[in-house]
């Protein structure tokens, strides 16, 4: 893992299509902290994560890592960001291990596969085809895969959807471990992550979201 000390977002504005979604958003994250994005459905949490992952173009503002702009820097993103959207990106045709192995090869971290399966408590599923998994199990597999990623910054979009109590415990332990090792996490969730309070910083997206009614769209 390449260490990042500070990750800052300055005065960020994001448009999707013609519609402004977020305006003037900014925060500062230091290593070892989890930024918990809160806000009602549709307030722009997923859009923010997707933007930080480089999938949506930034209209205005800047993204800095240790003071250097990394906005739209694909090479930096590939090395330092692990993004898990609400989609699992698993192929039902393959087994759990085959699925994870493909990405681990691409990310250059094959040695962490078994460990991360173990961390999410799904060793026993290793040779099961993904099409036989329940949605919670599939989510755990997706989480285990993201644990393989060597990135310092994790972007998690609703990681807890569908996973049970035990799964949540496993996830919390893995997250705390990542934070303790100097990593950072930005996570959109409505659940209570069982992570030490001093490691969590809440960030309310609502203040920066442009509501549908005020954006001037009449949808006609």
């Amino acid at each position, binding site marked *: 893992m390449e260490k990042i000390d500070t990750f800052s977002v300055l005065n960020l504005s994001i448009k999707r299509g013609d519609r402004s979604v977020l305006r003037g958003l900014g925060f500062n994250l230091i290593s070892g902290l989890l930024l918990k994005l809160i806000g009602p459905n549709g307030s722009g949490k997923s859009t923010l994560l997707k933007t930080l992952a480089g*999938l949506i173009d930034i209209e205005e503002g800047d993204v800095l890592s240790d003071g250097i702009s990394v906005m739209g820097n694909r090479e930096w993103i590939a090395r330092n960001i692990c993004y898990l959207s609400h*989609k699992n990106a698993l192929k039902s*045709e393959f087994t759990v291990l085959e699925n994870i192995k*493909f990405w681990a090869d691409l990310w250059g971290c094959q040695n962490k596969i078994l460990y991360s399966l173990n961390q999410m408590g799904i060793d026993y599923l290793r040779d099961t085809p993904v099409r036989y998994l329940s949605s919670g199990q599939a989510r755990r597999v997706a989480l285990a895969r993201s644990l393989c990623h060597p990135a310092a910054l994790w972007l998690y979009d609703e990681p807890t959807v569908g996973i049970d109590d035990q799964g949540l415990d496993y996830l919390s332990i893995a997250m705390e471990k990542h934070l303790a090792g100097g990593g950072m996490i930005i996570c959109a969730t409505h659940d209570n992550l069982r992570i030490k309070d001093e490691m969590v910083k809440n960030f309310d997206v609502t203040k920066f979201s442009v509501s549908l009614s005020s954006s001037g769209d009449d949808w006609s």
Partner: protein
Amino acid sequence: MNTHFWSVVKRDIKIGWQGGSTSSMVVAFFIIVVTLFPLGVGPEQSVLARIAVGVIWVAALLACLLSLDRIFQADYEDGTLDQYALSRLPLELIVIGKSLAHWLTTSLPLILITPVLAVLLNMNDAALLPLIYAMLIGTPALSLIGTIGASLTVSLKRGGVLLSLLILPLYVPVLIFGVMAVDAGISGIGSNASLLFLAAVTLFSFAITPWVSAAALRLALD
């Protein structure tokens, strides 16, 4: 970089042949379409011999078209495309890899089954070799051009019909030169000129597809 590229290709080939196996269905579709013609136009041997090459080419275009939406659709829906876009492998390279896998899993089997269908249609013996050459050179263009269409329609829920409308007109040059190559081969003029044109179409689509398709995918991922 190189090994990653091949692992993307291998993954798509495996998916093509596993789970319901789209590839074998495409081959079956090709065979059925071709066998419908003798039923439709009658068993007159000379008529069949005359239309054989055109029928095989058109059936190949349609079979290829049928399988285009699977190039990106599943990856888009399950989030794999997001992960590809984030990875260190350029999206352009992934596009080429998926296009190559599409060719290997659809067009190549069609070419392999063509000699059998040629017999079925009473095709002139002298036409077979030029037809195989023309298909080997021309079908990569079908996959490449189709990849552009697939990436443009990936975010549409029912993009299949639109995809056909977009792509079929672009397939016309391949069809024309593909048939001309065989005709010239039979008549003794030599099919080189048409084969070169086919090669030009394939190379041109190879040159533009990665860029166009990757740009379209980035828009779709927004």
